[in-house]
């Protein structure tokens, strides 16, 4: 039995008002057993569609999915997959504990209900009816439903979207404990910090494709380790990108952001050539910068970078 999850050449289109929408355009991803992988990308990148195909909720137009050597349907039937989908409410007229018990009863080797209630911090609301919960409490219960199945592969589609800061921290703490049991975890997120902090590896998606795949540290190294930001109107971007040590230029109004492979050389050359530059900041590039760089390489990258920038609130 293969100890990997393999997505091969996945493609999926949907019918849209202006013709087909190619949500996923050829995705290849491998995840080894025990790995924690972040599927990272802006809204509309194809993350949820990819996850739906991984779970067998959607049939791919082309390509294949193998979950530890089985089809998704077989893995689901064996109880090997637990998932917290992006959206979903709870069914009513049961208490939180009863709902978790009900879910546990469907799996071959579930975790103890009491343990899961404690792990997810919902033991205090265990006796409450599911229709009386707040949004944050509902999210915790949904996480409990995914955990109680004690799956080999835990899939989380943007799990922290509806959570406040404290709930988010608790959530990741719990998830780390679960990962420490040797479980495989794949989570989708558009929060770069989450991928950076909690994943062994990040798979970056944009416009239905994988644009980078590697350890988060490696991805940062790939696109230059630092950025220089300066207020510098009236200088053409071409001149700036020709400076030594500069790998990329982004204009944001009067400011420019230079991605650097060698920020020391770049700052010397910048000040020599353009002494009027002011408000200079040099910073380590986050994954966000890496993301913009990577999507900008694509021929249709500009639109994608813009979409990405919008998604990140720029």
């Amino acid at each position, binding site marked *: 039995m293969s100890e990997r999850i393999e997505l091969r050449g996945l493609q999926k289109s949907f019918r849209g008002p202006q013709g087909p929408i190619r949500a996923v355009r050829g995705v290849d991803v491998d995840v080894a057993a025990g790995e924690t992988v972040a599927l990272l990308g802006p809204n509309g990148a194809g993350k949820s569609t990819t996850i739906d195909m991984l779970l067998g909720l959607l*049939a791919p137009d082309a390509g294949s999915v193998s979950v530890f050597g089985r089809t998704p349907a077989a893995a689901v039937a064996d109880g090997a997959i637990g998932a917290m989908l992006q959206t979903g*409410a709870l069914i009513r*007229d*049961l208490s939180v504990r009863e709902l978790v018990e009900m879910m546990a*009863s469907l*799996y*071959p080797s579930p975790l103890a209900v009491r343990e899961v209630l404690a792990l997810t911090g919902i033991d205090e609301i265990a006796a409450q009816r599911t229709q009386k919960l707040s949004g944050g409490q509902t999210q915790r219960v949904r996480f409990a439903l995914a955990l109680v199945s004690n799956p080999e592969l835990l899939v989380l589609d943007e799990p922290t979207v509806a959570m406040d800061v404290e709930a988010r921290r608790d959530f990741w703490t719990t998830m780390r404990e679960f990962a420490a049991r040797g479980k495989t975890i794949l989570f989708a997120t558009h929060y770069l910090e989450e991928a950076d902090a909690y994943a062994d590896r990040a798979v970056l998606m944009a416009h239905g494709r994988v644009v980078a795949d590697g350890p988060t540290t490696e991805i940062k190294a790939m696109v230059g380790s630092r950025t220089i930001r300066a207020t510098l109107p009236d200088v053409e971007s071409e001149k700036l990108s020709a400076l030594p040590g500069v790998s990329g230029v982004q204009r944001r109004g009067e400011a420019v952001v230079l991605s650097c492979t060698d920020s020391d050389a770049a700052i010397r050359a910048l000040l020599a050539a353009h002494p009027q530059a002011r408000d200079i900041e040099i910073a380590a590039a986050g994954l966000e910068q890496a993301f913009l760089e990577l999507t900008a390489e694509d021929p249709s990258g500009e639109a994608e970078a813009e979409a990405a920038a919008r998604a990140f609130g720029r």
Partner: protein
Amino acid sequence: MSPLVYTRFELLRTVRNRRFFILSFGFPLVIYVLVAGSVKHVHDLDHTGLSGPLYFMIGWASFGTMNAMVACGARIAAERQAGWTRQLRISPLAPRAYFVTKVGTSYMMALITLVVLYLAGASFGVSLRAGGWLGMTGLILVGLIPFAALGVMLGHLFTPDSIGPAMGGGVALLGLLGGTFFPLTGHGFLPELAQYLPSRWLVQASRVGVGGHGWPAKGWIVIAAWTLLLSLAAIRAYRRDTGRV
């Protein structure tokens, strides 16, 4: 790892949903009491050979149980919209087990409705031999199978806010044409059409109660044909809804 626990919680949920639970049999009961009270002394209602209270006991039992069966559609539609169906599709609970649970819950509601109406009927003087009660009940339970399939189909075709009229209208129409509300007598298009409706044969189940025969071959064929047709339609609706081939 067993769907039994799931079924147990599903039954619990149904009983806890007070309004649904009580209205399911309360509504047919109230109407029956009103209608049967007015024909308490009629021994041969419109030449059907059945007393007024017996005829309407089965008529309103048919209506109530049809509703109870089709109501599983509303629950399915609600669970689809809540995203619960998707959550179950990534669990080992087989779709078949899910539908068995849903239909089983509907049968529980149907049985409660029957018992309540039988008790009301008895209070209006309906008195049958044990074999009559059992034969009648058996036929009704068989006659409800196509309505279970109808419920599953509607649950996958409609959203929670549109399924109400679809269910209510459909059951009212089938009830009317099947002779639930008043006997369809004489000849003509409607009584002829009724011969081919499953609701008509539900109402006919009452004949067993007075020592008559159950369904003729035609009744069994009509019920079987509707079961087959609606089951195929339900499977189709389910597959289209879930994108499975």
